[in-house]
């Protein structure tokens, strides 16, 4: 079975994130989060980037904790059910509108919790995309005209963890010299060895890439001004179109501009890409399954968008439970449909084979 196209995972995850942004019902949020976690845990590979979900989970928990902390300490009034009252600090008159301490209402707390939970869940969706689709592999499928830019991003992505490792090593080594450096010296004592390390590494990477033929098939002549100008105009048109469409000032004109702009950009990138005759080894094929996968995420987003139009007030209310006065969130059958779309990848794909076909030197590498 061919592996899933990385952009299909990203479309699925971004669709779910968009869907999440359009609801505050905690039941719906929890359902989607459970679905996303299930898909990641059952469909990720054993590569290093697949272990990144935990970092995003920690970050999500941090977001919720911070939002609650700030609400409790500086929360605005509103709500009649006071849970407890913190001692209030009187602030000078110029800080009017900011409050430190004071009563904490259940309504406000619940509202903050819903809102923070939604944001945290959206972050988890990004984490899921990162864990399921290697970001570097995703960048391999960009148009040839963006090849150099994608190479730069890929290198930056691999340098970051090496830099962290380098900083840890140098910080540890500082103890050996008594850790005596203070102030500015303490900064240089870490920064200089780390930078020297990074520069050495970049130089050897550059030498290696040069020796392996990087940039060899590039057309050395400067690109034609017509192409550059056309591409720029197309991108401007696309931006303006998107602005008009979302601003709802003039949707038909906006839509037309957006379509024209996108078409122009695609044409420009294709023509630009011909200047570089780099080939791709085993490019990820886009299969019908990938389309379904991307569609499942987009369908979830589209469902929410329909609810969000407000055409069906009861439905809208179910997805946005009131917090003042407090009500129990209700589970609408449509939420199960959205959650079903979120777990669709489990039905569409199979678990990847382990990359390790023999036990090998894993222990050695870890040490």
């Amino acid at each position: 079975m061919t592996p899933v196209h990385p952009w299909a995972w990203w479309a699925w995850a971004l669709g779910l994130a968009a869907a999440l942004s359009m609801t505050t019902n905690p039941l719906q949020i929890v359902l989607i989060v459970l679905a996303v976690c299930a898909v990641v845990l059952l469909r990720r590979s054993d590569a290093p980037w697949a272990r990144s979900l935990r970092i995003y989970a920690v970050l999500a928990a941090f977001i919720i904790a911070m939002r609650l902390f700030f609400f409790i300490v500086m929360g605005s009034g509103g709500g009649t059910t006071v849970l407890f009252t913190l001692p209030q600090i009187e602030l000078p008159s110029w800080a009017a509108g900011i409050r430190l301490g004071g009563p904490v209402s259940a309504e406000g707390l619940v509202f903050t919790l819903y809102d923070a939970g939604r944001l945290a869940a959206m972050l988890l969706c990004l984490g899921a995309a990162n864990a399921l689709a290697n970001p570097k592999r995703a960048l391999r499928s960009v148009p040839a005209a963006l090849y150099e830019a994608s190479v730069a991003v890929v290198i930056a992505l691999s340098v970051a963890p090496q830099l962290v490792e380098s900083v840890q090593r140098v910080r540890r080594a500082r103890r050996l010299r008594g850790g005596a450096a203070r102030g500015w010296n303490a900064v240089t004592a870490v920064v200089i060895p780390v930078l020297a390390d990074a520069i050495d590494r970049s130089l050897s990477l550059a030498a290696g890439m040069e020796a392996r033929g990087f940039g060899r098939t590039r057309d050395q002549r400067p690109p034609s001004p017509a192409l550059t100008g056309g591409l720029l105009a197309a991108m401007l048109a696309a931006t303006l179109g998107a602005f008009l469409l979302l601003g709802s000032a003039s949707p038909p004109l906006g839509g037309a501009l957006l379509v024209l702009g996108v078409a122009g950009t695609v044409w420009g990138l294709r023509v630009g890409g011909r200047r570089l005759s780099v080939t791709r080894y085993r490019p990820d094929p886009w299969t019908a399954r990938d389309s379904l996968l991307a569609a499942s995420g987009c369908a979830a987003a589209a469902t929410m968008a329909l609810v969000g139009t407000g055409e069906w007030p009861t439905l809208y209310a179910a997805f946005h439970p009131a917090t003042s006065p407090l009500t129990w969130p209700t589970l609408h059958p449509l939420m199960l449909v959205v959650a079903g779309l979120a777990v669709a990848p489990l039905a569409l794909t199979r678990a990847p084979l382990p990359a390790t076909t023999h036990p090998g030197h894993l222990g050695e590498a870890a040490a």
Partner: protein
Amino acid sequence: MITFEDVTLTYPGASEPTLREVSFTVEEGDLAVVVGRTGTGKSTLLGAINGLVPHFTGGTLAGDVRVAGRSTAHNRPRDLADVVGWVGQDPRAGFVTDTVEEEIAYGMEQLGLRPAAMRKRVEETLDLMGIAALRRRPLADLSGGQQQRVAIAAVLAAQPRVLVLDEPTSALDPTAAQDVLSALTSLVHEVGLTVVLAEHRLERVLHQADTLLWLPQDTHGVVVGPPSRLLLTCDVRPPLAQLARALHWDAVPASVRDARRRVQREHLRVTAPAVVPLSTAPARVSVRDLTISYGSLTAVNRLSLDLRPGEVTALMGRNGAGKSSLLWALQGGLPSTGSVSVDGRDPRTLSAPQARRLVSLVPQTATDLLYLPTVAAELAQADRETGSQPGTAAEILSSLGSRLPPQADPRDLSEGQRLSLVLALQLCAEPGVILLDEPTRGLDYAMKDHLSRTVSRLAHEGHVVVVSTHDVEFAAASQRTLVMADGDVIADGPTREVLTSSPAFAPQTTKVFSPTAVLVPDEVRGAR
């Protein structure tokens, strides 16, 4: 295959050329080894083969370098990618992608090969280097030896006719190094590839080398010849060359087997020096039940050990056996359980400046300790941070036999000079215990001799000295040897006993005269 004609290379700002009027030819299918002391221009010579020197590094090149008939004057390194494959020291620094298969394909993508041809060559290359089982593995999860084999496979996929390797094993442990070198020799013998490589531990490749390219010090030239003759006169002396000189032989044996045969043919009789028993002086360092864990991995497992002054202790074992962890724990820089006592105090409970006066550690990447722009500034900083008389560190440095230009940037020094500098900085705190983690990496034979004399002197002055090393020849100069495996000490005793008892840890001289327990060529000087 490779022709250098009157090549003179000068780097910008240098007062004299790095290579002067160099002319030589490497025949097709040869394994040529570039040897020379550190700083004689080995990397420059290797880089000149595919044009990285001077296209990438800068400098002016006079004369002509031709590879398979193509001159580097008109071809950039990228244009020669299908003729010359170039592999650097640290494979990790050269990886552009994430997984084995993609890394191998990368070079061919750059050459614009058709996907079908690419697919076929990737499969062939995976088999050729014996890494087919690793194809989907992330590069970061591979061991050092596997990574270097992937790096070689990655340049081989473009089907070059020449392979150039700049110290491909310097970042590897001996097993991994052997792994890589045997893969290389099979490329020479089975595929007929021309290979040029630089290697510090010459004993590892000597038996396979067809030609030696020797860069003598100070002359900036290149001397070319067969290893057996050239090694008698050249300033790079692997153990077998030292042995040949000690026995006044007219040629250097290519392998231990050749040397053994000649010893038998000439009926040489040698007597082993007596085993010197371990010191019985009171222990200065005593460790009981030391355990170090990283998560679920136990690096050192309930280890107990006494270290006495006056002895150099060599610490040996595979990568990941727990050597570095043990040294860091002795210094107190790593959380551990069990008891550590150095002169009656526990370095783990002391502040960093106090611990440093008790135990000094020179880490594996010694440059991590250097951060000032000049040698003089580093020495002055060491005086200040240890509260010593100004000039103390500089005095220690010259007593180590190193004269370094005070205004030089520490990062421009050679590996050996940098090691002397860091050692001087660390000795400035007058520690009783000195630990060196893998100091022999990147050192040439003369520098290793120098280091070996330095640590012996420190031990004689009453220091406790522990040196972790992969180099059995270096360990042979110590008095006590500890072998670690999987977090345990599996052998501990006088060096002569430990190193001569098993072939795995025996120096080459020992293997030649086995079962007579001699360790170094000096012990058989003039035997007949």
